[in-house]
């Protein structure tokens, strides 16, 4: 399949899922009611203030998870790399949770995504420094485990110190990931760092393609490795940091989507970036739709759903990879 056809198909899929998402829910309201102006404010409220931001945030955050996974796998030349592996998700979660705990989220809400971005960046830099410059994937995984454990420990500490059980519950549920109760304000907060992150990703495709041949050859072909690495790290910190601080830590999208779509781009890392963005958006939108279709009862958090689906898939990938000779 040619790249343009693939992108178009995925784009259409995302669009269809967005339309389903907007039209789905209690209240039997759909888009066409918007045209019927005697329904008035209630319809506008449901569609534009509740469903639309939720849909758009799911699409944008999902796209960020997808593209970050593809970029990390391209940079590390390993299909098992993901934003979670190198600590960016847990770092972002820790950063945002710290802001929540300190109550700063109430006073200046830009501080939460900022906390998320800073947390993500610090975590990734720590993993990189810990693993060393020419680290093998094993070393990176171990460093990632170390930093993830540290972030988890600190988050547990914060839960321990939290002022009330309600606060604990809030923080815990938030780290399981959700796109409910999000409004247009959250979208406006999410967009600038996300767009900046995506723009940074945009020029990295050629460098990632050349890394197929290893660092020395890539260098000989004009890739500035230090710059590429810094650029991708920054882009991941911005987009994951912002996404996680709004939606909570939603895992496995960055791992599963690039893996699934890689054969469709003939394994070329550069082309995988936009394709994974669309795939990630589709996956998160689909997961959110599934969550909303579930029977009434305790709300299944979207991060739980992606984990329940994603973890077995991850195991399956490992088994498959053993036969593939990375």
């Amino acid at each position: 399949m040619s790249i343009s056809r693939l992108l178009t198909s995925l784009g259409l899929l995302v669009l269809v899922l967005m339309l389903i998402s907007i039209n789905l829910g209690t209240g039997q309201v759909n888009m066409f009611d918007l045209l019927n102006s005697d329904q008035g404010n209630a319809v506008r409220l449901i569609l534009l203030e509740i469903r639309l931001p939720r849909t758009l945030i799911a699409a944008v955050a999902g796209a960020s998870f997808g593209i970050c996974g593809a970029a990390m796998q391209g940079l590390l030349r390993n299909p098992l790399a993901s934003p979670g592996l190198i600590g960016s998700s847990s770092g972002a979660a820790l950063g945002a949770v710290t802001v929540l705990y300190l109550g700063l989220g109430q006073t200046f809400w830009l501080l939460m995504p900022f906390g998320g971005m800073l947390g993500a960046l610090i975590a990734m830099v720590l993993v990189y420094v810990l693993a060393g410059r020419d680290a093998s994937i094993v070393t990176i995984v171990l460093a990632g485990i170390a930093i993830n454990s540290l972030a988890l420990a600190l988050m547990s500490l914060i839960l321990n110190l939290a002022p009330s059980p309600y606060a604990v519950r809030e923080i815990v549920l938030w780290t399981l990931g959700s796109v409910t109760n999000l409004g247009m304000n959250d979208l406006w907060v999410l967009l600038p760092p996300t767009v900046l992150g995506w723009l940074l990703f945009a020029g990295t495709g050629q460098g990632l393609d050349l890394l197929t041949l290893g660092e020395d050859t890539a260098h000989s072909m004009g890739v500035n490795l230090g710059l590429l690495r810094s650029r991708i790290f920054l882009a991941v910190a911005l987009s994951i940091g912002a996404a996680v601080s709004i939606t909570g830590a939603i895992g496995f999208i960055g791992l599963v989507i690039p893996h699934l779509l890689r054969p469709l781009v003939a394994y070329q890392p550069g082309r995988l970036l936009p394709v994974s963005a669309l795939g990630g958006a589709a996956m998160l939108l689909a997961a959110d739709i599934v969550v909303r279709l579930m029977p009434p009862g305790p709300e299944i958090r979207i991060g739980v759903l992606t984990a329940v689906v994603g973890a077995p898939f991850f195991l399956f990938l490992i088994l498959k990879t053993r036969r593939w000779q990375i």
Partner: protein
Amino acid sequence: MLEINNIEVHMGGQPIVRDISLRVIRGEMLGLLGPNGAGKSTLLRSILQLIPVQHGSVELEGRPTDTIPIQQRARTIAYVPQQGPVNWPLTVERLVALGRLPHLPAWQRPSRRDQEIVERILIETDLSHLKYRSATTLSGGERTRALLGRALAVDAPLLLADEPVAALDPAHQLQIMQLLRGYSSAGHAVIVVMHDLTLAARYCHRLALMHEGLLVANGSAREVLNAENLANVYNINARFGEDDDFYIIPWERVADRS
């Protein structure tokens, strides 16, 4: 084309290349010989600025390499390292096509001309029948040819190849040496690091012999690969061929004279 003046290169604090001056012009193929550890690969890597040069200078067409913008250098020097990895299972065709990327701005797709160049190289490296095969499923020799093809696709004025024929069967060794010779005859400069003395003697215009970071000999095959140099540098003596069929067969080891 390439001028190296008295360079010294360190690795791990040790001087690996001690004082080397060398010149290669377009249309010339230079064979860089020497025992393991002589500093041949280090020399190549320092030309590419993969390792810093302590003293001396490396100049391309009169310009010091560290003043040349990285993209331009990428179009000027093509490099085939020893045992280069292939990290993703790209098709052979796409792998070779990576060689055209230094000529393409970030967004551009390869043009018709780029595709024609790739096709031609696939034929020259005897890989056309493997065009759509996954590069990670190739045999060692096929892979070497694919990676060399990628470097040829850059169409750079200077090609640096580090032991390109080491893993190949005799027929393919001859084919690749022929290919490299053709590439240099077409007006490019080629430096090839090798161990096969006969192939080096037969296909290279000139040979340079390194020993412990220094250049011991630089000239024609007969001048460089004489009995004395072979004994001093490689600790071997050899059987030599007749005037028209110049071959050198390492015959037995001699006592280490260093």
